[in-house]
């Protein structure tokens, strides 16, 4: 029988939180912004193939920052949950709330019972038939969930980024304006010029047919970023 020294729970949680925060702060940030036709996800990502933003189900998308292997694990678990739900019940019964709750449960258990907490932050978004029905959930490394509206930032510089987004955000932004606003905000907090090749962006677009998720291609992003903002 192994002997474990007593560590007060406050200390344990403080240490783990600090560890997770440090890990997340080393990585880059990501944002989600509601725009006229849906929800835009945008992240700083130099890789064109290792995605931070992905499709979960018809109306639900996922974005993660932090340690790739860990949020990829969670992403695949989310896709499994969504597909199984949709197959067992109906396609409309798969919601961001279900997925966010499952992530919250998983991360909370990992935070308290595993050797080390996951160094990740997640966003789960669902586009509704009208802007009022959009849903955005922000899930932290310890499993805490927040229900957000309009815009949300995650990652090490989330506070600065939220400040930037607050200044630029308006209801019913056009997609191009939302992309420019979000990429400018990211570039500002990362303190480097925004490079199109380092932006990963995707939308949940309610005007699309069944599968609302669509990635914005490099060419599309370049055109948007180069263009002048509309008046």
């Amino acid at each position, binding site marked *: 029988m192994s002997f474990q020294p007593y560590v007060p729970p406050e200390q344990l949680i403080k240490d783990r939180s600090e560890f997770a925060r440090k890990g997340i702060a080393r990585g880059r940030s990501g944002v989600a912004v509601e725009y006229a036709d849906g929800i835009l996800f945008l992240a700083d990502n130099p890789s064109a*193939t290792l*995605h931070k933003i*992905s*499709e*979960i189900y018809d109306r639900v998308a996922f974005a993660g920052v932090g340690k790739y292997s860990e949020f990829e694990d969670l992403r*695949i*678990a*989310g*896709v*499994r*949950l969504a*597909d*199984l739900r*949709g*197959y067992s019940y109906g396609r409309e019964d798969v919601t961001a709330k279900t997925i966010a*709750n*499952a992530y919250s*449960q*998983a*991360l909370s*258990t*990992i935070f308290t*019972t*595993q050797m080390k907490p996951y160094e990740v932050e997640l966003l789960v978004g669902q586009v509704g038939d009208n802007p009022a029905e959009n849903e955005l959930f922000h899930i932290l490394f310890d499993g805490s969930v927040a229900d957000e509206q309009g815009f949300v930032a995650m990652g090490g510089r989330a506070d600065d980024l939220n400040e930037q987004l607050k200044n630029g955000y308006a209801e019913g932004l056009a997609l191009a304006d939302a992309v420019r606003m979000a990429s400018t905000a990211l570039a500002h907090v990362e303190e480097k010029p925004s490079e199109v090749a380092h932006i990963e962006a995707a939308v949940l677009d309610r005007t699309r047919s069944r599968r609302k998720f669509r990635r914005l291609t490099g060419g599309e992003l370049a055109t948007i970023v180069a263009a002048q903002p509309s008046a």
Partner: protein
Amino acid sequence: MTKDPFSGFPSASYPLGADPSFFDLVRATESSGPASTRAADVPVQAPRVPHGTTVLALKCAGGVVMAGDRRAVEGFTIADERIDKVFPADESSAIAIAGAAGQATEIVRLFQTELEHYEKVEGDRLSLEGKANRLAQMIRGNFPMALQGLVVVPLFAGFDERHGGGRIFRYDVTGGRWEEADYHSTGSGGIHARATLKKRWRQDLSVEDAVAVAVEALYDASQEDVATGGPIPSRNIYPSVKTITEAGVVAVPEETVRAAFERIVGA
């Protein structure tokens, strides 16, 4: 006694990495399993369900045309005159069903989810070859049911995005998979439809001509086979026809099918 953090999620065991198969996931997570995988414990010999249907696929310039009649039969009774037997499997392939309707539509639904699941987990679509093989494995899973009389033998066709052009695959009850060079038809009226296809099919038919050939073949089959429904102009019932090209799986509008039918009968 640490709690599995992922206990809220379905899981599938896999040697390394994530298993991108939804079919495996369903089998692993549901103790009862999808109907098609647990046929063996059906104790009684189910009545033999005749697969009254005609579905066909033929290659044309830039893709494939797939079509099916609209009739479902239960013995000597017409169960339905409006069912659709041609389904999009994903954005670039379609599946036409012949056989026991309940089993067949379930396999279609599972197959559609399978393709989308793979695409999401892997971030990349399966090759057309991969899709055809996967479907073969799923039909093989249904083999015990087939022995009970619930036979499912679909046609699968798609646009091969990596090599260009349309391809057609046919299946047998054991999950055997054969690629067809030009055209194929299956179901109780398949043999009659094939006679028409043999006469009418040419290399590089235009999409419009291929649609006309498909409608003619189905019409001929409906004249020879009681279980194959012909067009019913008075009730606006016409065969379902889909084109599968680089542009995706597109349903041919009813007016076009009606016009093709009217040209054939000289109305």
